[in-house]
């Protein structure tokens, strides 16, 4: 009689992600075992780290007092190469990706064309810029031309995929209205599709311009020209004040590009 059901007197927070108690414990244990295994493979040469600390200090000092002047010629050449490479590769990449994007849209392209274009996009997207840059440097020699080809190739996959998805999402009624006037395929694309996807295409191109600049700073490390090469050289010479200056310039340009492309995209909408 007296042993009525005992209710808990304290409220416990219910588990948020994994509901089953068994899986909660199993996942925690698994994570701990993995962490122990993974951390044990990290070999740290403490003597080297201590030696490096003085370098780290010099690097931070170089970052706080950047040296823009003594290597200003190299920096200007690097920046010039990066910016021109960025612009030309975005233009060429977008121009090539427009037909590929049209071909990769299921609603306006025949099936064989669709498959070919989709596989071009998949190849371009699955390989990383740096790896492509290595190959292009091996084939076309060191310098900005290899970087230009790398960025153009990467742009094709990016713009092509997003453009194709955008074309697949268009308002079918407008395309049908154009078709009903007896328009051929070119006229259909020109009057039914292009007006609907143009604002987004411009936005994407600006976004890609921004990405291409960031990437141009990286692929220089493997020899594809631009500011990355200058940075690599500066670090190789342990000139941390020049490296600090280059990094500050990169950050400044990236921030500028991000804000201005955001502003432009809002303006174009």
């Amino acid at each position, binding site marked *: 009689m007296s042993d009525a059901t005992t209710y808990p007197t304290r409220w416990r927070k219910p588990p948020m*992600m994994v509901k089953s108690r068994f899986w909660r414990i199993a996942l925690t244990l698994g994570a701990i075992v993995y962490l122990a295994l993974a951390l044990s493979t990290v070999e740290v040469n403490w003597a080297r780290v201590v030696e490096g600390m003085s370098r780290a200090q010099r690097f931070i000092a170089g970052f706080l007092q950047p040296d823009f002047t003594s290597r200003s010629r190299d920096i200007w050449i690097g920046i010039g190469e990066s910016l021109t490479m960025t612009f030309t590769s975005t233009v060429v990449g977008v121009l090539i990706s427009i037909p590929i994007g049209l071909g990769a849209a299921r609603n306006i392209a025949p099936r064989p064309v669709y498959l070919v274009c989709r596989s071009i996009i998949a190849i371009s997207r699955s390989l990383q810029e740096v790896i492509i840059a290595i190959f292009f440097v091996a084939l076309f020699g060191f310098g900005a031309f290899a970087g230009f080809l790398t960025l153009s190739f990467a742009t094709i996959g990016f713009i092509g995929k997003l453009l194709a998805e955008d074309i697949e999402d268009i308002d079918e009624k407008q395309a049908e209205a154009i078709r009903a006037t007896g328009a051929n395929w070119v006229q259909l694309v020109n009057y039914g599709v292009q007006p609907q996807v143009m604002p987004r295409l411009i936005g994407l191109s600006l976004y890609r311009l921004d990405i291409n600049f960031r990437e141009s700073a*990286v692929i220089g490390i493997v020899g594809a020209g631009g500011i990355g090469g200058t940075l690599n050289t500066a670090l190789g010479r342990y000139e941390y004040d020049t490296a600090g200056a280059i990094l500050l310039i990169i950050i400044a340009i990236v921030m500028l590009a991000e804000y201005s492309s955001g502003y432009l995209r809002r303006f174009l909408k």
Partner: protein
Amino acid sequence: MSVTDAQTPIWRHRTPKARLALWGGWLACVALFVWCWEMMTQRTIWAFVYDAPRAAGDLLGRAVPPKWDYIDSLIWPLWDTMNIATLGTLLGIILAVPLAFLAANNTTPSRLVLRPIALFLIVASRSINSLIWALLLVSILGPGILAGIIAIGLRSVGFIGKLLYEAIEETDVKQVEAVTATGASQAQILNYAIVPQVLPTFYGISVFRWDINIRESAILGLVGAGGIGLQLQASMSVLAWNQVSLILLVILGTVVLSEWVSAKVRHAII
């Protein structure tokens, strides 16, 4: 009759002024492109470029078929690459979560001092690629997987921090008010009103970043930061292209696998 015909205005999409401006804009773009092209190709050696198709054929001939038994010496570097990506993501999360709470408009303790600092750190981390971080860290810490982990971590801070603080700013104010009304302290408000709202997004962001980090850690070895990239660098410097092609296949397989895992996990969470 023909007089009235000639006077009928023809409909045009744009006014003459707008057409002129558009035409001028296009001309400026083309001119800029030509100028940039000239600047860029100033130092190009065209002999190499014309030679490229032959060189490509030669390279392909050496790269196919891949040297399959080389896979034995790729297992450990691959494990290292996974560890760089996973531990780097963890480091990024540990650094990014406090930064995100400092940077979010509704949770920051000081809007004038700490918020701008946190926002600057997030932007700075985002604008420097992990390969550049690795380049710096290798010259400071020496080559090895530790430099790779820290490089991946520092790059992830900006990504996770930005997406997380945007998620925190988008939380529902009503829940915060309800918890505040019970007399909860600041810490309790965070724990009971804000964290449960952003937790699914947080897991989604982390897994997404982990997926990106797997890709990035595969190439960090090129500058000496450990992982399968070291093997890639070594094979390329001895021009063993059949090993290079195998390494690329392994990287491609890992990337596809991690993308599949991350898509599954995000699907299950959200």
